[in-house]
């Protein structure tokens, strides 16, 4: 059931992307440039089957997918998947540290704001989080470049030179992600802190630290797992803008290049990878809820035991 829904989502995503791209530009004209001749355009269309009606082109593509053939890139004439996979390491180098730093900064900040709910420190951190969310990553990126590369001359602005090259792209991406974590942590913890069990815990004479650690934080974990899954799901597309600003040749910049070149197979492969990662990440998050939250674990067990019991009752002994 769930798998069916996931497949349907992927199919709709691919179809939508395919038809929008095709409707807004002819790959032959875009790739061969404005000065090309009609013969070259015809040869290109012939070579790639672009003369077929759109729905048939899509059918050919989907048929390939069913046989695990992700299609060829117009730009390289090579497999689209190879091209995408060659860019994955560069993107992971940005995304993994980003998730790490955004959790390391965002969760404590959100938690701190929540337990100081309504006070000045809460307002300041909330405001910072809103700013972090509101400033577009490319603007933040260019701002950082002006300060750290031009003004101070401390960091190389583009591509990979040495370890310092990670600081600005990871920093600008983390700012946004940390803001998301901070806001979700804050609202989750505020909600938990309003729960009567906290009053009970206080009344039982537990220390504040123990209440925070043993009651507030574990209960706020579920929404954080969901967000982490979403962030990881967006792994391949998350970095598009940042990669472009910092001249980083990852999947994100490949996506931008491929959309501009109407390199259908590559765009579709990236979307397929991003969609699959997101679905998998959500699935893993669902599984982990059971480990984190005893209530879910218990309810799953009881459902399971009900099923076993019913099955046992119906089967002849």
């Amino acid at each position: 059931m769930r798998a069916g829904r996931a497949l349907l989502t992927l199919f709709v995503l691919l179809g939508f992307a395919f038809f929008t791209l095709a409707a807004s530009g002819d790959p032959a004209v875009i790739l061969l440039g404005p000065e090309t001749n009609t013969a070259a355009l015809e040869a290109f269309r012939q070579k790639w089957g672009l003369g077929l009606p759109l729905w048939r082109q899509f059918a050919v593509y989907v048929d390939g997918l069913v046989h695990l053939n992700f299609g060829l890139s117009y730009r390289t004439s090579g497999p689209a998947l190879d091209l995408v996979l060659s860019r994955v390491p560069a993107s992971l180098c940005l995304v993994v540290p980003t998730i790490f730093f955004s959790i390391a900064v965002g969760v404590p900040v959100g938690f701190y704001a929540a337990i100081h709910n309504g006070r000045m420190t809460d307002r300041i951190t909330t405001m910072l989080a809103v700013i972090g969310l509101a400033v577009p990553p490319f603007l933040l990126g260019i701002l950082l470049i002006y300060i750290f590369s031009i003004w101070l001359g401390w960091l190389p602005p583009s591509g990979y030179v040495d370890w310092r090259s990670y600081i600005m792209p990871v920093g600008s991406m983390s700012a946004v992600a940390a803001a998301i974590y901070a806001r979700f942590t804050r609202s989750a913890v505020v909600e938990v802190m309003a729960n009567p069990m906290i009053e009970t815990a206080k009344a039982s004479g537990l220390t504040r630290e123990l209440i925070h650690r043993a009651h507030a934080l574990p209960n706020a974990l579920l929404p954080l797992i969901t967000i982490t899954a979403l962030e990881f799901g967006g792994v391949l597309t998350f970095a598009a803008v940042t990669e472009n600003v910092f001249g980083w040749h990852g999947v994100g910049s490949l996506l931008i290049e491929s959309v501009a070149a109407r390199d259908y197979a590559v765009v579709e492969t990236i979307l397929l990878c991003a969609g699959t990662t997101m679905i998998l990440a959500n699935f893993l998050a669902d599984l982990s809820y059971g480990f984190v939250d005893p209530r879910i674990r218990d309810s799953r067990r009881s459902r399971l035991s009900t099923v076993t019991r019913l099955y046992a009752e119906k089967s002849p002994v």
Partner: protein
Amino acid sequence: MKTQSSFPRRLLLPILAISLTAFHGAASAFAHDLVIAVQKNPDNHDPVSENSNPNLRLMYSLYDTLVSVDYRNGGRLVPNLATSWSVIDPRTIEFHLRPGVVFHNGDTFDARDVVATFSPVRIGADKSVPVQSQPFFKGIDRVEVVDEMTIRIHMKSDDAVGIYRFSTYPSQIISATALEQAKTYAEFTEVDAGSGPYSLVSRKLGGDIVIKKFDKYWGSSKAAADKVTFTVVPELATRIAGLLSGQFDIITEVGADELRQIEAKPSCAIVGGPVQSIRGLVYDSIGSPIADPRIRRALNLAINRDALVKSLFAGRTSVPHGWQMQTFGDMYLSDRPTPEYNPKKARELLKDAGYSGQQIVYRTQQGYYTKQGDTAQILQSMWKAVGLNVKLEFKENWAQVRADTPDRAIIDADSGAYYPDPMGQFWRRMGPGEFTDSQFFTVGPSMLTLGNELATSLDTKRRRAIFAKMLENFEEDPHAGILYVTPMFMGMRKDRLSMDPLPYAYLDLTTDGVTFK
């Protein structure tokens, strides 16, 4: 004892460490290395497969042509892979090939390579291989091998610019062995088949292209750098930051707004300027709101080109004297004026044509050309001033711009002078070809007759007269408008190097073009 908190620490730090070390392209710092930040690198470097500025930029380093145009000396022809040549008759040119030239793949240059260069698959005769060379080489009949080091190229008809066809794009000579060894043509487009001053080290689609000095290069102008890295940095702001902070030695595709910012830094400078190309407009004169030639003349008369050059480029480019460049030498008509700016006459023509404010659609893009969007907006207001109702439509790509719908009227175009002759610019663009194929305009019989004579006559005086007549006719019934000479600017670290760039999309990285300090 294991604690719970050790789990994430144990897992995360290795992940971080692995991810940080997995991706590296260690930058080494030799004395004579160059790092050039570009907006885009070519998808392949086969000259005939991609006609783009990124590919032309690289081509000059990787390949040689039979003869070349010496732009630094008034555009005269000089020997290159051919030591000498003679025009045997208006249809035949004989080339004596240079001995001792070695390709990057180890192959020795001889007649076989010239035959391979102009083989059917590379001149557009194979319908299944898309190449850009067909308009340049469709006149080639056959290549005759006289002996190992002598060849004759036979044209189908008399060819006034025959020799020029072998001086520049896309006549770069390839190694026959490289073409033979490639399993498919697509595979060939990815290899380095040249004999130029630099050889290819590595390329990554959408990423860096690295070339290095070719030690066995035959020419006297050797590679200036030991290693050159073309790195893709799509954002102009980042390219500039990299130049100012010293990460890059050269940056390309610098806009007109950024010139002052770069020059304000004592260690940096701007190089480049007008190139052999005219930035202009193309008019759809078939069944469009501007089908009446008087309206198109009015469009041209309403443009104040000096104002464009001054306001957009701070006077760093110029207005050409009609559809020609000064490098045309004997064919340059120096007495021709720059295009007339006369709003009064424009208004009168519109009145005569009975134009009463019908909407004219002008499709443009934001930044395919330098200052493209700004130019379009200024033009719109200049046209408005004479009573033309032009609607600007910003599009994402060329397919959208050129879509042949009834409202298509004005589009942007750039007309490069591929040869220093009207055949390489005016008639290549405004004669039968790309624009007539895509139904922008038709070429009338009288222009066709003149064009055919321009293409075949070898009498310079006669050709000058014909060209002048053609320009006059074109002014009366214009299918295109002139704006300014296309400028190309680069930023450079002047504390490290000095440059003498060519007025062309080629980037000269030999000792003629780049000197280290």
